[in-house]
């Protein structure tokens, strides 16, 4: 049957319903099971990141060379690694690093990207062309490669990784914000503000910014998921936190060779932790996006 979507003529009803959208947003989110699952997993990892060592049954650092490569058992829920450390505790404590770096880096990138996007979209002309070229150049490199380059050049501390994530996200977020700002600056309320004699910063931040907040929020949550991806990958490549600190990505890279010997638990639980975190972030961001689009 060929019956396809056609907009409904109900301008009147829409106008009335719009007023409740704000409150509705949260209500709709809370009603979505996918959002709740994602939020719950996130909460678990936040708790682990904050209270890590306090919750963990064993020390994450203590080696026990008589007890190496033990398969999961009731004593060691996730088994032990090649130095006899308790994997369960390491997975719990290993959350801290990623839970700090990923959000901070994303926030940095969002702030910088929003500022850049506002400038490019509002002024257009040469600032847009110049910055646009630089953004394009940045985007010509895969994020992982850019991060590799910067971390190698600047060295790896947490602060630098946060900075790197901020830097690689800036052009991506700038591009989205610029597109949204470009649409907005074509609207007449911007002309009206100019006719009132408003200055550019006022127009950019007070008039335009609130109207592009939805795409920025969506972009933030999507990027947060990718930040987790990126932090884990950098750790895996040995460019993040250094041993013996527990970290999911780092552990997978260090224990990858153990898999051939059959010690699968030394990587699988870290992998599962990463998967649960990225999936949780994405469930949350996807739900927010759906609600905002409506």
């Amino acid at each position: 049957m060929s019956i396809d979507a056609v907009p409904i003529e109900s301008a009147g009803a829409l106008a009335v319903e719009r007023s409740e959208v704000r409150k509705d947003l949260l209500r709709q989110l809370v009603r979505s099971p996918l959002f709740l699952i994602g939020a719950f997993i996130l909460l678990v990892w936040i708790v682990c990141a904050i209270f890590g060592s306090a919750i963990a049954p064993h020390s994450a650092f203590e080696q026990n060379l008589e007890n190496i490569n033990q398969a999961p058992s009731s004593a060691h829920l996730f088994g032990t690694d090649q130095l006899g450390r308790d994997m369960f505790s390491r997975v719990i404590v290993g959350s801290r690093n990623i839970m700090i770096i990923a959000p901070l880096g994303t926030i940095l990138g969002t702030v910088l990207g929003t500022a850049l996007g506002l400038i490019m979209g509002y002024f257009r002309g040469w600032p847009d062309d110049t910055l646009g070229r630089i953004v394009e150049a940045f985007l010509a490199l895969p994020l992982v490669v850019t991060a590799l380059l910067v971390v190698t050049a600047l060295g790896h501390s947490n602060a630098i990784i946060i900075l790197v994530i901020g830097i690689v996200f800036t052009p991506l977020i700038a591009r989205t914000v610029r597109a949204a700002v470009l649409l907005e600056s074509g609207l007449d309320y911007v002309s009206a503000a100019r006719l009132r004699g408003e200055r550019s910063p006022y127009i950019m931040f007070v008039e335009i910014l609130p109207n592009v907040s939805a795409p920025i929020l969506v972009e933030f949550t999507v990027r947060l998921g990718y930040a987790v991806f990126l932090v884990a990958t950098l750790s895996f490549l040995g460019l993040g936190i250094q041993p013996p600190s527990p970290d999911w990505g780092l552990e997978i890279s260090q224990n990858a060779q153990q898999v051939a010997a059959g010690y699968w638990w030394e990587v699988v639980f870290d992998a599962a932790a990463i998967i649960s975190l990225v999936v949780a972030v994405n469930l949350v961001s996807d739900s927010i996006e759906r609600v905002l689009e409506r």
Partner: protein
Amino acid sequence: MLRFILKRLGLALITLWILSVIVFFAGQVLPGDPARAILGPLAAPQAVHALRHQLGLDQSLLSQYWNWISSFVKGDPGTSYQYQAPIGPILTAALGRSLKLAALAFVIVVPLSIFAGIVAALNVGRPVDRTISVVGLSGTTVPEFVSGIILIVVFAVGLGWLPVSALAPPGSSFLTQIKYLILPAIPLVLVLFGYIMRMARAGTVEALESDYARTATLKGLPRGVMIRRHVLRNSLLPTITVIATQTGYLIGGLVVVEVLFRYPGLGQLVAQAATNKDFPMLEAGVLTIGIVYMLVTLIADIGFSLLNPRIRLSAVE
């Protein structure tokens, strides 16, 4: 049309130039002295000084940049600290291997994801659509090394179906090579699948809801014909561009997958250069990646404009 291509080409060159500047100056920020790094902390100051001169490190930054970029363009990207050998041949061999892996991933993912995107779009809101979307989203968000390690645990170690290493023994047949490459290709496919599928789905949904699809339906065209002739052509056009931009993710993924599977491609080369602070190698590798990416997007742009009458005919008007 020709003007369009030339314009694109010019823009690509400018972008590459900016990229080369960024890459070069990133190398200059590196704390410490490359000559010292090569010779070690015990070397005599005279030797270090001599090497600095030999490497051109005592010249001004600008002339260093000029020397580097001009010899790169001539096909000589310099000498690797780590290998103590010219970078050119090492880079070319690694690039070849990476392209092989990337090509395999591409051949699998493009038809698969487009097909899935169309199927999802034709069933918007139904369970098929939800399933495809959730699978796509999950695949996209899980880092390649995570899915890779699980694949190794299950298929290489657990079931023993496929080799753990990615590099086939020298002189292997085409099929054997593919057998070795299939496991590392899957994480790449998983990440790309979601992106391309989403785009194909969104494009198809939009085209299905368009006025021209309504016109076609109300003409009395059978649904199949309507979709093939009127919907797909319009929905797949933007997808092509997306596929091209996804090469970025693909190359990023190559770095990770090659390290995990110990596959001596461009990605592993760059990762190693980064760990070993082999800057000439890193710079050359990164710039090569940039060139490959620009080339692919350029080709996609031209392909897009050939298929899109709006751009193709704009020069004629």
